[in-house]
């Protein structure tokens, strides 16, 4: 049976067909759908872990115990998980272990565009890269086999364009793989990485790399496609598709395994073509390895190192380098379409984060942000976000700024899921080392930005089973924070009053603003639009400072001040009431029945 699958769905399907039984992941674009899809398939265990390091440890535990397992994450998630990833390389496994990294060239939804192939070389483990959905499935099955054959975790590297592109996939059956052994392996020399054992393991790991490079020679997904020989292209992943599109007549060495590389195969290919180029996204990872072999190859001198490639950028670069004639250019229209309004991502109508940012903007305090929807507190008119780095960073950055002697009151904002992810140890550090950081935990009862995944606070697992609802306030108290308050997130006045009170303290304090994401089904049921009584509105514009997409500037002007009155778009308004709270003239209220 053939079905159109995204790369993410195909990777999950491949793991399932390969008999993987355990998967753990933390949501992150563009990787999220891998675990979501796997969780829907029969006969498997799938979970949202609290962070990527936890996810990799869980997958390692399952693989030690003898079941095929994977952990999936976005590229920067592997930074969090690096410690676990590195020791797994040292110990090896009992059953197949695949670590999936979804890189984001072009930074569609990330803070950087690091090329995680480097992690494979760093950890001395093989790196596989699919070039379409069919390969995403097939290479996943190959990855599990490779893992067991060489006693190694496998880094399976996808990119946004592979994850979120769809193409037909031939579905196969699952091969069930029961636990390899009843007893957990008692094998300390292999699984207890104390220095004495690690020193014995390292030479074995280097020997494994040598054997993997040999194996790469005959790995079926490393293949030479010989066509005309004036140009040869070494390529992998989605760049292979662009190579085929832009240079249909060129010979291609298509690598499914990008580390370690098959040196004799590359030499044979290089010898068979007149000019050798490497076409790869981001870093010159293959190119540098090829040049270290002493083979003349061009790559980043022709193609961009920054951002995502596409057929047009590849073609333009090739024309500029003389690889293609200027006549290869497909002229695009150059019509002047005039100025167009931008559509910046903004907090949704009814977003429970809006009220807090409105207050923070008013208080003019430095705000250290974190990764999640609330990063949109950056955008005008809220403009209340001054640093964002990575998951869990905000609290410690605020602590550091306070310890540096900055006399302003440092505020950190963090979401519920991000608090569980890496906020916990950061807040504990604030308590232990005593800085007067005010931490605002914006608890919208779900992992929002990535599309409503469950977390320890939601009371439900990735596979829809009931779970304990973990409350945040008792955790914060147990960490030793003396000043803790939970407030309904739409209560603007109470948020402002509490923050001002906390600012007078000289101790750590935590404000938990709590309200379900307005897009959750149970929240949608409560939606009811508000409206502006235009006879009361005098166009003061305070409600415009909320940056709510449902609040419009009316064509009607206030007679006295000649400024636009407010108007509420009833199709967008959720009735959260924050605008009604900030309105000094009580001009906003429930819509009157027509």
């Amino acid at each position, binding site marked *: 049976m*053939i079905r*159109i699958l995204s790369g993410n769905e195909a990777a999950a399907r491949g793991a399932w067909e390969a008999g993987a039984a355990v998967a753990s992941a933390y949501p992150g*674009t563009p990787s999220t759908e891998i675990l979501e899809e796997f969780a829907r398939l029969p006969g498997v265990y799938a979970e949202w872990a609290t962070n990527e390091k936890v996810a990799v440890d869980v997958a390692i535990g399952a693989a030690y115990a003898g079941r095929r397992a994977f952990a999936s994450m976005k590229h920067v998630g592997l930074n969090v998980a690096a410690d676990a990833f590195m020791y797994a390389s040292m110990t090896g496994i009992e059953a197949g272990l695949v670590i999936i990294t979804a890189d984001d060239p072009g930074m*569609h*939804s990330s803070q950087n565009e690091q090329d995680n192939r480097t992690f494979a070389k760093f950890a001395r483990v093989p790196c596989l890269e699919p070039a*379409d959905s069919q390969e995403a499935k097939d290479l996943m099955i190959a990855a599990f086999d490779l893992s067991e054959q060489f006693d190694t975790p496998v880094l399976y590297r996808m990119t946004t*364009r592979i994850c*979120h*592109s*769809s*193409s*037909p996939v031939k579905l196969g059956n699952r091969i069930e793989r029961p636990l390899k052994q009843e007893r957990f392996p008692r094998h300390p020399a292999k699984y207890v990485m104390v220095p004495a054992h690690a020193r014995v393991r390292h030479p074995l790991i280097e020997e494994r790399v040598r054997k993997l490079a040999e194996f790469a020679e005959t790995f079926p997904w490393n293949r030479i496609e010989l066509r005309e020989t004036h140009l040869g292209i070494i390529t992998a992943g*989605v760049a*292979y*598709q*662009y190579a*085929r*599109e832009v240079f249909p007549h060129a010979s291609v060495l298509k690598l499914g395994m990008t580390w370690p590389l098959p040196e004799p195969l590359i030499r044979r290919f290089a010898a068979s073509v007149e000019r050798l180029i490497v076409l790869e996204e981001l870093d010159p990872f293959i190119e540098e390895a090829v040049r270290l072999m002493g083979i003349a190859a061009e790559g980043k001198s022709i193609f961009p190192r920054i951002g995502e490639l*596409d*057929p*047009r950028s590849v*073609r333009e670069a090739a024309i500029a380098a003389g690889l293609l004639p200027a006549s290869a250019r*497909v*002229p*695009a*229209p*150059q*019509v*002047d*379409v*005039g*100025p*167009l*309004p*931008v*559509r*910046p*991502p*903004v*907090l*949704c109508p009814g977003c429970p984060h809006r009220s807090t940012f409105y207050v923070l903007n008013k208080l003019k305090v430095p705000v250290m942000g974190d990764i999640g929807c609330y990063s*949109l507190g950056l955008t005008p008119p809220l403009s209340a976000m001054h640093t964002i780095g990575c998951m869990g960073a905000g609290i410690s950055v605020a602590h550091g700024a306070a310890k540096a002697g900055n006399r302003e009151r440092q505020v950190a904002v963090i979401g519920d899921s991000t608090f569980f992810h890496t906020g916990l140890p950061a807040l504990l550090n604030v308590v232990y080392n005593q800085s007067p950081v005010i931490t605002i935990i914006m608890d919208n009862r779900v992992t929002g930005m990535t*599309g409503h995944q469950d977390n320890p606070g939601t009371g439900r697992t990735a596979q829809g089973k009931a779970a304990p609802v973990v409350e945040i306030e008792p955790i914060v108290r147990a960490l030793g924070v003396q000043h803790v308050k939970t407030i309904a997130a739409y209560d603007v006045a109470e948020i402002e009053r509490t923050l001002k009170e906390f600012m007078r303290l000289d101790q750590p304090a935590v404000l938990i603003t709590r309200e379900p994401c307005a*897009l959750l089904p149970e929240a949608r049921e409560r939606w009811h639009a508000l409206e502006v009584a235009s006879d009361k509105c005098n166009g003061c514009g305070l409600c*415009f400072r909320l*940056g*709510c*997409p449902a*609040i*419009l*500037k009316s064509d009607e002007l206030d007679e006295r001040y000649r400024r636009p009155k407010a108007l509420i*778009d009833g199709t967008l308004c959720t009735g959260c009431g924050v605008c009604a709270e900030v309105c000094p003239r009580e001009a906003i209220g429930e819509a009157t029945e027509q």
Partner: protein
Amino acid sequence: MRETINFLLAGVGGQGTILASNVLANVGLAAGYQVKQAEVHGMSQRGGSVISHVRWGRAIHSPLIAAGEVDAYLAFEKAEALRHLNQLRPGALAVINLRAIKPVTVTSGGEPYPDDDRLFAAVAQVTDRAVYVDAGAIALGLGNVRVENAVLLGALSALMEREGWIGSEILPDEWIVQITQRVPAKYAALNRQAFEAGRWEVGRA
């Protein structure tokens, strides 16, 4: 059958652009094409621009279409129609929804929103095979604005037939099957009506 057809779908989060591109990809597959589909929708839930590439062909490599190589354009919103106009091949087929979804930068930020004359004039410079459909109004008339994507797919199917791009290998029923299996059963009939209303707009029942 044409060798390849490159479709570009452009709209705003929440308009059903992704569902429409899934339908297109599967219609192409059913007609015997190789297909690829690429979505760009990082922030779609938050009212951002949504772009989807769908390619049909004997052999398809890149999931992305290069600028200037779009053969058929399905624009769900007027400003978005203008935004991606320069991706089209001159003379491309275009179905353009006469629907305005004004971002907050316009409604309270004071940025201008393009008027219809600017849209018509710009499109006319690229292609004379554009069809304008008020799919939002048609969908609302049928009872639910959310079926505007089915209206637009109906118009596209009819336009492709009129231009001889598809024939008996892809009947309207194939589109309808692909649409209705992706929506809740209670909306199947409404989607069929919407698809047919879209075909009617291009003069084909």
